[in-house]
């Protein structure tokens, strides 16, 4: 974790709104992340965390509001500008989202090979170095995603996200579906990778142990808005009933477990 109180703001999201049909998912979402900071976004299932993340990188277009990266407004920018922006991000998805038809070495070096013509030999060497840092054996390079365990897939997805040394890393539930030991290993890998790259990190997680391990700052989203944001050490003492219920995993309280439908796959936008 980094000391970042004096660092400049890297990402500034203001009054972000997004609606799917009649369902207002983001109702004025505000969030600020400093350079080098590791921020964890928590909230109940379907509360809009993934939508906020996808708005940030332009996979979903916001209805209104502002998203600034290094002070540069990203909403309303051209496709080319958005592509340039995306090159500064590395992202892992909840279920890894590794490409089924490609072996791991091609998955890991996918963006590098799109950017520059790397020979197969060099790409394999690069992929080998990265997966070695993440504790995967060399033979994994030639396996396909379906041949890997859940934990190995998460590691391979992290390897793909960090291969191009991005400035900003986004992790969407990096430890979901993993046992506590593997979760701990994944958290360590995230911390090591982030520290090595000096990247700014935004992580979505339901796993409070994971949040305690990797976050500098925690923000909680409820009904499409941030209702609390503060240092990880303060999250047990916020005085907000929703945060208290979520952080302590209480079954009864103001939060319900019947969230609205915010599945983005259902609302795929027309490609451009």
């Amino acid at each position, binding site marked *: 974790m980094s000391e970042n109180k004096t660092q400049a703001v890297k990402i500034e999201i203001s009054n972000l709104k997004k609606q799917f049909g009649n369902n207002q998912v983001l109702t004025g979402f505000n969030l600020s992340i400093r350079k080098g900071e590791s921020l964890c976004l928590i909230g109940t299932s379907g509360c809009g965390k993934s939508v906020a993340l*996808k708005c940030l*990188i*332009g*996979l979903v277009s916001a209805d209104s509001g502002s998203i600034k990266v290094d002070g540069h407004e990203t909403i309303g920018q051209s496709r080319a500008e958005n*592509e340039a922006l*995306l*090159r500064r*991000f*590395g*992202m892992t*998805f*909840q*279920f890894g*989202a*590794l*490409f*089924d*038809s490609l072996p791991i070495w091609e998955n890991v070096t*996918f*963006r590098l090979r*799109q*950017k520059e013509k790397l020979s197969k030999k060099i790409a394999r060497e690069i992929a080998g170095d990265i997966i070695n840092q993440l504790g995967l054996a060399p033979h994994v390079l030639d396996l396909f995603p379906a041949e890997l365990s859940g934990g190995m897939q998460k590691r391979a997805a992290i390897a*793909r996200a960090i291969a191009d040394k991005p400035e900003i890393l986004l992790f969407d539930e990096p430890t979901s579906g993993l046992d506590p030991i593997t979760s701990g290993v994944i958290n360590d890998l995230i911390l090591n990778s982030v520290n090595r790259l000096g990247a700014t990190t935004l992580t979505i997680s339901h796993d409070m142990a994971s949040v305690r391990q990797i976050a500098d700052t925690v923000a909680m989203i409820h009904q499409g808005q941030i209702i609390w944001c503060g240092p990880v050490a303060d999250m047990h003492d916020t005085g907000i009933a929703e945060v208290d219920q979520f952080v302590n995993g209480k079954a009864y309280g103001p939060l319900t477990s019947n969230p609205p439908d915010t*599945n*983005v*796959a*259902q609302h*795929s936008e*027309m*490609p*451009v």
Partner: protein
Amino acid sequence: MIGFVQSLGASVLALSRMIGGIVLFTTIALRWVLVPPFYGRQIVRQMVDIGYYSLPVVGLTTLFSGMVLALQSYTGFARFSAEDTVATVVVLSITRELGPVLAGLMVAGRVGASIAAEIGTMRVTDQIDALDTLSTRPMQYLVGPRIIAGIVCLPILVLIGDIIGVFGGYLVGVYNLDFNASVYLSKTLEFLEFEDVFIGLVKAAIFGFIITLMGCYHGYYSGRGAEGVGKATTNAVVSASILILIANYTVTALFFG
């Protein structure tokens, strides 16, 4: 009554939305087919999937269609002593209609379903979003190569299917109906014109476009989970089959009408 009008209105709106969506998707897909970078490896992979692996099913379909056609025309034409036209009927039917349409429908079932399932699975497992985050346009990487492969492979498949179908008619004509082999062959070629084959191949290219486009469209907008991907697969095959039949009539009316 109000309920009926409501459901009718909803159906019309849904249909309009789907047609609008397909038109927009087609426009965007065509744009990215023509713009570099071209993903050569993806195109080759899709050509193998769509073309090479469809050869057995197309070959068998046209072989038996040619054989049945020879038998049926013989028994029918014998009623008015026109048996000697069997070879001509077989070759014209196969090259103009049966070859392209049967190959199109068989490939729609095999390839359209497979494309919709693959892209649909990529959609629900976030692989399409992952492509975007890895500086790759999904339309260029996923849709473009499939459409190119469909347009290139279907005419080749149909040409091979035409030859196999005519050969099927020849087998039945010579070995079952006792036609003289050289007479059968000369009758096959006597009335066959270049445009019969060429227009069949033009149809095949259009069918290849339709099949891959429908597979990509329904996969791209697949609903969530196994059920969503299943529906996308069914919709891809049904819509491609219907559009193939409509396009077949349109092209036939345009060139032969």
